[in-house]
């Protein structure tokens, strides 16, 4: 038997890429159809074949936590991207790998 669950996210607070990443991470237990509609992102979650109800409910809970985590990662990554590039630039400078 397949189980399903619908989650709705406000586009003002969640990036679509964040939901895609959370969906990818959950693929061992469930699949997610993602659709956008009037400022909302709708995630339709369906259990994988062979996943029982209790495992599916746990996976839905994990998915929700992952969405929050990935949104925070998104914020952190955007803010630190310039300094990350600077650090990598410093790390790879003067390696002698490219002739001057």
């Amino acid at each position, binding site marked *: 038997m397949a189980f399903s669950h619908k989650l709705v996210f406000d586009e003002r607070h969640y990036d679509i890429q964040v939901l895609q990443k959370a969906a990818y991470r959950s*693929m*061992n237990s469930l699949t997610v159809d993602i659709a956008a509609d009037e400022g909302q992102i709708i995630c339709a979650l369906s259990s994988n074949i062979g996943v029982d109800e209790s495992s599916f409910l746990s996976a839905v809970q994990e998915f929700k936590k992952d969405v929050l985590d990935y949104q925070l990662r998104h914020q952190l990554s955007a803010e630190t991207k310039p300094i990350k590039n600077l650090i990598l630039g410093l790390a790879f400078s003067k390696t002698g790998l490219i002739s001057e």
Partner: protein
Amino acid sequence: MSKFQKLELYAQQLPYELLPFKFDRLNDDEYVITNMAGEFHVIPAPMLEPIISKTLPLSSELIPTLRSKQFIRFTNEQAPLQLLALKIRTRLSRLAQFTNLHIFVVTLRCDHSCPYCQVSRQSESKGEFDMTTEMADKSLDFVFRSPNPAIKIEFQGGEPLLNFEMVRYVVLEAKKRNLKERRDLRFVIATTLSLLTDDMLEFCKQHNIVLSSSLDGPMDLHNANRPRPGRDSHQRFEEGLKKARAALGYDQVSALMTTTGKSLPRARDIIDEYLRLGFDGIFLRTLSPYGFAIKTKKFMSYDTERWLEFYKEGLEYIIELNKSGIRFVEQYSSIVLTKMLTSGDPGFVDLMNPAGAGIAAIVFNYDGSVYASDESRMLAEMGDHTFRLGNILEHSYEEIILSDQLLDALENSFTLSAPMCSDCAFEPYCGAEPVYHHAIHKDVVARKPESSFCKRNMAIFKHLIELMESDEQTKRIFMGWANRC
């Protein structure tokens, strides 16, 4: 008269800035945060959001730790950037040196018939499975094209002692060439020790060759795992070990174990056997999905969860031993801990990014084929030649090293751009492993949520961190392991 200013004068007034870091849930209550240099810190779950939104008060006791590990900096501080860059550079310094380990498969013949054999060995008499001198010469040309100042040549099989003449030839020829090359040249023979003779040992002693052997546990388990005529694999191992230690030195012989279904309930027995035979460590290995391990379905005989139970039980026992004063190391943990607790990278091929295939190790097979790694040639013995980079008799160094087979695998599996890995807090400790993922999933990246490599390693990383967090003595033991490499 001068006097010190009050402490408050030095207090930071401006908010802190974030430096790049990643995070993952360690358990329901805690997150682990890591940075590009592999520094990590465990924080209570409710602290994560305030750290990232920069609402953590400057008086928080977390601030000095986050600063000292370069997760945050105060405005205009330059030292954290320099430190991070230096640590990253140190971690990646092996890349510039390029290939160190060169594996010569001098024969595929073997006197054992292990059902989990990952190289699909042949019977002792089949001479067509031996490397020729022409192939060996060309392989040595290749070896000395590597820019690495340290070169290790490892002889593998089958049982390399069945073609000892070729071992002898390669060692002498390599040493002759090295008179001019002046590299740090080392030799290893991977052998069961069952066919070791005094003449061979004399040669090994003369040329500082070390031996890497196999021990699966107590006699009954070892002999069941490693059948040979006479069912005396363990006895021969023990005799060979004694002779080899006497001739070459006590620490010149190491052993590796393979975990089969029969090993799983016997973690302590296996470790006790290593202790009895005087080893100071053990590598709790899982079974690789190659060769006869797949054909005989041995690979499917246990799952990742069960192996993790075995690993955790073994590690717990090893920690107990260390606490009671017996220094004994679990070597896989030691490799991971080196990546967690130091800026060094032990260069373990499975845990490298970019993958170690070809650029850390390369294999010259008995038939002239060149493979990206030991696992690649194991895969080839199963009929999958995806990671065959060329033939030593037909292709140049450049053609092999710059082959699409190698470059595509390295580029496509790079973890910093792989789905899930790129956001994973444990990425600095993990590896790309394109060959494993290709073998199981037919894709060098694979879907990580379905990857047992990912599941296994993630569980190990979390377990090691939790052990360190929960017990200061265990952390001290682990620091000792990490700093030995």
